[in-house]
């Protein structure tokens, strides 16, 4: 070794940098070769990068933007929005100029989609604003100034300062109101953010429940998956392969089929209840409720996500030499100590990978809770879908989705700081 070093240094020309055969400095040549290699590598990555940017990053960015975008009032009631900028005393109704601007806006917008879109937007903040605006738009067509009295006379809602406060608040092109609503909060009359009435609170509890359920499901998959992975890793190939197929078979079955079979298994008139009655464990009147509630969600999701825990665990356990356990035993550790102090620490990479994988998939799960969760088994993603498809409050759906996304990123960051992402091992 020492000799080799000496012989290499022998070749260094005493007066200048190392040269290649063509007389070029070796450093430059090397840098060029490296650059070419990097470019080739990058070129290979480009298709995937483009794909991810176009189909993933841009849509997610757009969704995140949707949670603060608020173009309706400013676009469709531009004069009103401008006039409201000079509204000083928020405890008094705005003056005639604002009402006149509103009348002009509504006249201009009558018969076009404008009034409908503003109405839909403001209805999220105050119930009934949609028809209040529609009525006003119809009425102002043949109204004479002064508009203030005339408009209020037609519909008392316009004489309520709260209506105007909301319009003023939402007359900016960007808003925080979707995030405020997503955290079960609202503005009070003094402009402070406060909790909504207890019977209107949903999302905070739902976020908490989503996390708790995901943690429970992750723990259960670990509890069930660890022994299976251990068995697979320590059996002869023939048996291990058979076990592997048993793990993978459900993995390859349609998600809907697996979820529906759980309904058949768990429902009150289902297989499991029938068996329990047959065995005399419960009576006919005591049939257990195991589906359309949290139990259903937990059971079905644990089953569906189990392979995501077993596979990384198995691949890590496969690489642990059996001699370590034997060494620990021969040095005097009993079976449990050897397992707990020597074997388990070597599987942490697999536990980490499986845990992160199962947890992150579980936190955004949608179909299974929707089918077997009843009400107590619903998760936040069910409400994101609800606002996307049914209530059509896309801003609120975007805010909920953004909160979920950033929580997952935060958890990933914490995981990286505490355990280290480089210790993840997927196989």
């Amino acid at each position, binding site marked *: 070794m020492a000799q080799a070093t000496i012989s290499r240094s022998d070749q260094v020309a005493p007066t200048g940098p190392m040269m290649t055969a063509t007389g070029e400095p070796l450093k430059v040549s090397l840098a060029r070769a490296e650059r070419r290699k990097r470019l080739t590598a990058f070129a290979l990555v480009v298709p995937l990068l483009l794909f991810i940017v176009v189909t993933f990053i841009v849509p997610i960015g757009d969704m995140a933007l949707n949670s603060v975008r608020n173009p309706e009032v400013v676009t469709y009631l531009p004069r009103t929005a401008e006039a409201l900028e000079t509204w000083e005393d928020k405890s008094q109704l705005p003056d005639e100029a604002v009402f006149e601007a509103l009348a002009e806006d509504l006249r201009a917008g009558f018969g076009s989609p404008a009034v409908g879109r503003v109405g839909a937007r403001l209805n999220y903040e105050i*119930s*009934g604003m*949609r028809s209040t605006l529609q009525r006003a738009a119809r009425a102002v067509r043949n109204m004479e100034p002064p508009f203030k009295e005339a408009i209020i006379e037609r519909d008392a809602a316009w004489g309520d300062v709260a209506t105007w406060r909301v319009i003023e608040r939402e007359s900016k092109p960007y808003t925080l109101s979707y995030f405020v609503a997503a955290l079960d909060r609202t503005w009070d009359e003094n402009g402070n953010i406060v909790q909504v009435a207890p019977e209107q609170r949903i999302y905070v509890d739902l976020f908490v429940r989503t996390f708790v359920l995901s943690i429970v499901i992750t723990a259960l998959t670990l509890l069930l998956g660890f022994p299976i992975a251990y068995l697979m890793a320590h059996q002869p190939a023939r048996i291990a392969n058979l076990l592997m197929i048993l793990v993978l078979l459900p993995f390859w079955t349609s998600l809907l089929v697996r979820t529906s079979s759980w309904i058949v298994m768990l429902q*009150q*008139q289902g297989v499991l209840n029938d068996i329990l009655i047959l065995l005399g464990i419960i009576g006919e009147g005591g049939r257990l409720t195991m589906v359309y509630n949290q139990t259903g969600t937990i059971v079905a999701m644990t089953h569906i996500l189990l392979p995501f825990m077993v596979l990384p665990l198995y691949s890590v356990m496969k690489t642990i030499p059996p001699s370590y356990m034997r060494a620990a035993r021969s040095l005097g550790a009993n079976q449990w100590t050897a397992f707990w102090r020597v074997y388990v620490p070597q599987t942490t990479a697999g536990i980490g990978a499986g845990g992160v994988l199962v947890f992150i998939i579980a936190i955004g799960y949608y179909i299974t809770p929707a089918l077997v969760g009843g009400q107590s088994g619903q998760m936040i993603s069910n409400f994101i879908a609800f606002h996307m498809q*049914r209530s059509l409050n896309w801003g609120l759906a975007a805010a909920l989705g953004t909160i979920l996304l950033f929580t997952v990123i935060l958890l990933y960051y914490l995981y990286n700081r505490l355990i280290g992402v480089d210790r993840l091992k997927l196989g």
Partner: protein
Amino acid sequence: MTLNKAGLFAAAAVGALVAGTGPVAADTTLTVVSWGGAYTESQVRAYHEPYMEENPDITIVNDDGSANALAGLRAQAQAGNVTWDLVDMLPSDAQLACEEGLILPIDHDAMLAPAPDGTPASEDFLPGSLGDCFIPQIVYSTVMTFNTEMFPEDNQPGSIADFFDTENFPGRRAIQDRPAANLEWALYADGVAIDEIYDVLRTPEGVERAFAKLDTIKDDLIFWTEGSQAPQLLADKEVSFATGYNGRMFAAAEVEGQPFEIIWDGQIVEWDGWVVPADGDNVDAVMEYLYFATDSQRLADQAKYISYGPARASSAELVSTHADLGIDMNPHMPTHPDNYQTPIVLDNEFWTDYGDELRERFASWMLN
């Protein structure tokens, strides 16, 4: 072989291009969006098939997107790529879509066929059913249904009040996971007169009263989302009562022979009908189709396949027997006088105004 494949691809690409140009092409494909299942089937047999037979250049493709029709219309308008030609949707959503300019206004008398006796369309359709952009097809109702085997023969329920009476009529109940219909029933069972229900619901105290009534049976409730779940739960005897659409309950009871009985008391009546998306490629062809599909005979024909009532007065006398079962369909229509004793007509104006708030309140109530 490779050459052949390439040729096929080219032909397919050209075909796609031609189809994309719409009315210019000889053949027109209309994408009709509806609710799927037995309902779409009834439209195919009553409207699409006869129309395609008369007009061989028209092909009708079905899309089961009506459950999210408003979301779809908004998304397509935003993307500037309207692919739906005709959409089956509920009047409340149609009203919103109309106000937002997503669908075309309809001049009913100019665009729709008169009744056989010459009555113009605007007078022939049932009162209050026509919307600015909406052409009703059917009257459907959300009804309370029970499984007769879950109760002794001498003690069968018969009213909405019985549904809320868990002492005399024990067992779990399945209701839809939305406030519409459920809040109305709660107030009705609590003694509010039918024509005052929405006035009461417009007040905060009325909403409290409705939720308080629902609280009394909450422990026995489970919630369904999709229309097909309700008859399934009832057939499996998972529940004793289930709310559901009368057509699906009819299909389960009469076609499949399930021991179901419908409680027509307090049936929640609503329309369902067609809207035409703005900026579609085939508006002219769709209008021609609509003239045919909404005439008195066609609306009556649909009742041969599903137990929803036609939305035209002149269709009522044309309703005949079920196409496969041969039974008289009249007694199964929500609008039959025997069934139409105490109907609650769904107030769409109310639900478009208060829906956002009450849906959240209801969701919060279900979860806690």
